[in-house]
């Protein structure tokens, strides 16, 4: 494997407290090393900035729901196509790009890792098949546990250890990385066309509340010692006045502790910071939510920015997608998954002229700017829900430049200025902040900060270089230049290999898929397995033997073995 010296660049590596220092980075055997290796290839980055490769904690890039979104939207695919080249496969899709194209597009932005957040366990094989067809990135996926009958019953019975043993089995069976919870309880209620409207609204026939599910799974997560915390999409996404549920939710797992990271990752909080009781008086409650995040030490969030595009919404929150299509009358897919969850999909046009969309745009930015500690707020669009990930450079320009935001505030519906605090916020991100919310913080939240999201010794040789000279560029003024530079990495280097040069793909690789494998006490596992066997025969539509994802479905796996044998012992 080639060795590299990345010379003369200005480095932003917040995890190692390197904030805009001119220094050289050495890579050998795919990792960052202390000294230049003999014969190493030099890359001169004079007048450029250097960051760790981008890390994405929440982006719907693979799996049944994503593919249903693609199927649903030929008109979206016609809008953006990539022809085949000597090096790369062809593809199509603006809001839901095809797999090969997804990898290329992320790589062009300087990203080297992306996690897909919502995998119905029964469909896990599908998610992995797609992940295998996404080049350029390290990947992983989170099995959904929100409406899981086993989990709900164990938690209801107060049998937290069995719930943990089941969760361990589920991660192993799906080759999943972390526990995802989407609209806890609400997805099972959706089996009957209903929903859970507050944290204490019980799930029909299961006699358990969303609050109990979240609390229980947070405990399960820490009991198993998983790298990432629970990854939660709170109840009431997109509903008026939902900020109260959000603030309530942040407090639920406050009893759980972890010394290295949060115990709750609350996702795409833009969609959960809504005030008002009718769409006419819809307003931002981002300030209130940001305050709650500032106060807590157990939760961090990602933003879920709205980018004002014609996009495709997709979530395991079936009732929410139903509600959304009932407002727009657009086409709508629903895909309830037996005993597990209930994804839905519908297109959405965030028109800048619409007051709602303009306010949603403002909320995403407010969250980023009002949460004081950049380590507590990660930049996402909940791709493709708030907009496609290809808009990240634009969001970066908004975060770094008040004039950029002012220019937008002029263009979009005036409600954005009136019913959010965005117009009054002066804060502008610096490159260190950007590196935190797009890399370092994401890696830390995932529990992968040893190897990802930084440029210290031993880290993966994943590096992004952008054509920005920090000494001669004022991001606040030249926000268009910022957007342009972040749109096409000067270099994207992954595992020490140059994949992108001057915004063009120069090499195609397939990264690793991360999955976690916690082992609990053997006798507990046996007990839970016999329970699983009993219920599978009766209530699933597939035989138990055909459920777990076979090894062959994971290309280049990285199995994170976790000793959790104290559970049940």
């Amino acid at each position, binding site marked *: 494997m080639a060795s590299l010296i990345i010379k003369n660049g200005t480095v932003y590596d917040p995890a190692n407290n390197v904030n805009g220092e001119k220094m050289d980075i050495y890579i050998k055997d795919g990792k960052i090393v202390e000294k230049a290796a003999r014969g190493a290839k030099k890359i001169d980055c004079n007048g450029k900035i250097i960051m760790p490769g981008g890390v994405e904690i929440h982006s719907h890039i693979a799996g049944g729901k994503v593919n249903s979104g693609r199927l649903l939207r030929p008109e979206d695919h016609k809008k953006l196509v990539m022809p085949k080249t000597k090096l790369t496969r062809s593809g199509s899709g603006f809001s839901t790009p095809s797999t090969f194209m997804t990898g290329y597009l992320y790589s062009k932005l300087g990203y080297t890792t992306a996690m897909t957040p919502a995998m119905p366990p029964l*469909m896990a094989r599908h998610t992995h098949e797609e992940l295998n067809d996404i080049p350029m990135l390290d990947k992983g996926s989170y099995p959904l546990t929100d409406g899981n009958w086993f989990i709900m019953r164990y938690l209801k019975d107060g049998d937290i250890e069995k719930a943990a043993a089941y969760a361990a089995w589920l991660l192993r069976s799906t080759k999943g990385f972390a526990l995802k919870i989407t609209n806890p309880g609400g997805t099972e209620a959706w089996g009957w066309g209903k929903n859970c409207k507050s944290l204490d609204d019980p799930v029909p026939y299961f006699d358990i509340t969303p609050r109990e599910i979240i609390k229980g799974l947070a405990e399960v997560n820490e009991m198993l010692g998983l790298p990432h915390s629970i990854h939660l999409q709170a109840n009431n996404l997109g509903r008026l006045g939902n900020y109260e549920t959000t603030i309530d939710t942040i407090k639920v797992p406050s009893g759980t502790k972890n010394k290295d990271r949060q115990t709750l990752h609350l996702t795409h909080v833009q969609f959960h910071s809504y005030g008002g009781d009718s769409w006419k008086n819809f307003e931002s409650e981002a300030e209130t939510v940001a305050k709650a995040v500032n106060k807590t030490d157990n939760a961090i969030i990602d933003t879920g920015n709205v980018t004002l595009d014609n996009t495709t919404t997709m979530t395991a929150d079936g009732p929410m997608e139903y509600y959304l299509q009932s407002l727009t009358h657009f086409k709508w897919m629903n895909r309830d998954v037996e005993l597990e969850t209930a994804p839905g999909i519908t297109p959405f046009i965030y028109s800048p002229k619409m007051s709602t969309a303009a306010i949603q745009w403002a909320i995403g930015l407010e969250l980023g700017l009002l949460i004081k500690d950049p380590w507590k707020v990660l930049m996402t669009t909940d791709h493709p829900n708030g907009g496609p990930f290809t808009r990240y450079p634009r969001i970066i320009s908004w975060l770094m430049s008040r004039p950029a935001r002012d220019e937008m505030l002029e263009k979009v519906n005036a409600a954005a200025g009136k019913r959010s605090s965005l117009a009054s916020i002066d804060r502008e991100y610096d490159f260190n902040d950007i590196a935190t919310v797009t890399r370092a913080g994401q890696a830390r939240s995932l529990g992968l900060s040893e190897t990802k999201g930084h440029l210290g010794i031993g880290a993966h040789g994943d590096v992004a270089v952008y054509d920005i000279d920090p000494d001669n560029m004022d991001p606040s003024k030249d926000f268009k230049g910022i957007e342009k530079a972040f749109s096409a990495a000067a270099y994207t280097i992954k595992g020490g290999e140059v994949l992108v040069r001057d915004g063009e793909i120069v090499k195609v690789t397939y990264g690793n898929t991360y999955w976690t494998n916690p082992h609990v006490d053997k006798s507990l596992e046996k007990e839970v397995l016999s329970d699983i066997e009993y219920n599978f025969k009766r*209530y699933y539509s597939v035989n138990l033997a055909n459920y777990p994802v076979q090894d062959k479905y994971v290309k280049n796996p990285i199995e994170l073995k976790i000793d959790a044998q104290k559970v049940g012992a």
Partner: protein
Amino acid sequence: MQESLSKRCTVASDVVCPFCGTLCDDIEVDVKDNKITDVRHACRIGTAKFFSVLEEGRPTKPLIRKNGVMVETTVDTAVKKAAEILKKSIRPLLYGWSSTSCEAHAHGIAIAEEVGGVIDGTTSVCHGPSVLAIQDVGCPSCTLAEVKNRADLVIYWGCNPMHAHPRHLSRYTIYPRGYFRERGHQDRELIVIDVRKTDTAKIANKFIKVDYGRDYELLGAIRAAVNGNEINAEVVGGVTKEEIQKLAEKLKNCQFGVIFFGMGLTMTSAKHRNIDNAICLTKDLNRHTKFSIMPMRGHYNVTGFGEVLTWQTGYPYAVDFSTGYPRYNPGETSANDVLQRGEADAALIVASDPVAHFPRKSVEYLAKMPLIYIGPHHTPTSLLADVFIPSTFVGIETGGTAYRMDTVPLYAKKVVDGPKGVLSDEEILERIYKEIVRGK
């Protein structure tokens, strides 16, 4: 596999049946001396498929047409010839795919992209119209055990599972006991809507006979009734207004309803608009209760081909790579249209039999062009082929991924070895691909 009886006799359990989109995964197959001796739990057609690997005179050697006669050749020569035909063609059609694995699909798509061809699946002549409808209005659906556990009202419209998906009713919909339907079929009502009293209709609680070609009007009238609007006719499609209104009330008042539909809707007058209206009815019903709808996908992996093609190109069938990027428009880029317009100049047919299942005019064009066929049996298509490379049976002699009609993916495992020297579709296609890119 567990050992049983003698050393050479094994029982493979949890085998996935590679016949229809029901994708039963509870089959048991007895194997002795690498021969299938018994098949349990499968339906009549599934059983026939497992035993068909034993067909006498099954082709094991590739054939190439020389001076009008098919002569035996080696796999290498056949692969080279196939690659040559595809490279020479300026608009090849790559068709079929429903009866092979997703692993094979991926190689097929790579070939289509490399040679700038049109790739289409049997969906085109099956649930293609359903796809067009879904793309226009969406599709509220679910996996099959949702039906098993919750459904109290099941409708089969324009489909006849007793013939085409024989275990559908017993595994997923009517007969099984479910979590919320402990008494099985006693807890459910079955309605069949069709132009004739099919064998499925005969076991229904209610059979509604619709006039041929009037499904669209009937669907519209039911929607009007569900939505509280007047119907401006006394009889629609042979069904009285009162009966339509009663049916609408029944649909609104069930707890969990589902519509399964088949070729009786996709092939009949109005085609995709029948499905469109049926999906919109399902959407309307979700304002009142929980309702889902699902196409009865025919071949065991027709769904899988759509999935792979969609994630790799963005579109589920009828994809044209001639401009270097995927382009899609059934009616233009679909197999029968390309053929009947005379726009293809060579064809690669895999895991399907268009000569048996396409209209005569399409086949006339197929017969005129260089034709490559890959499949395990001699078929009407192999009879017209210029290159025929026999392959193994996926799910019997070769493992591979398949997607059930509700898009649940399963691994269809191998239970016996294929005939000596016979490669899988996946291997053959990979070799053709390598031959095409060699030297490029």
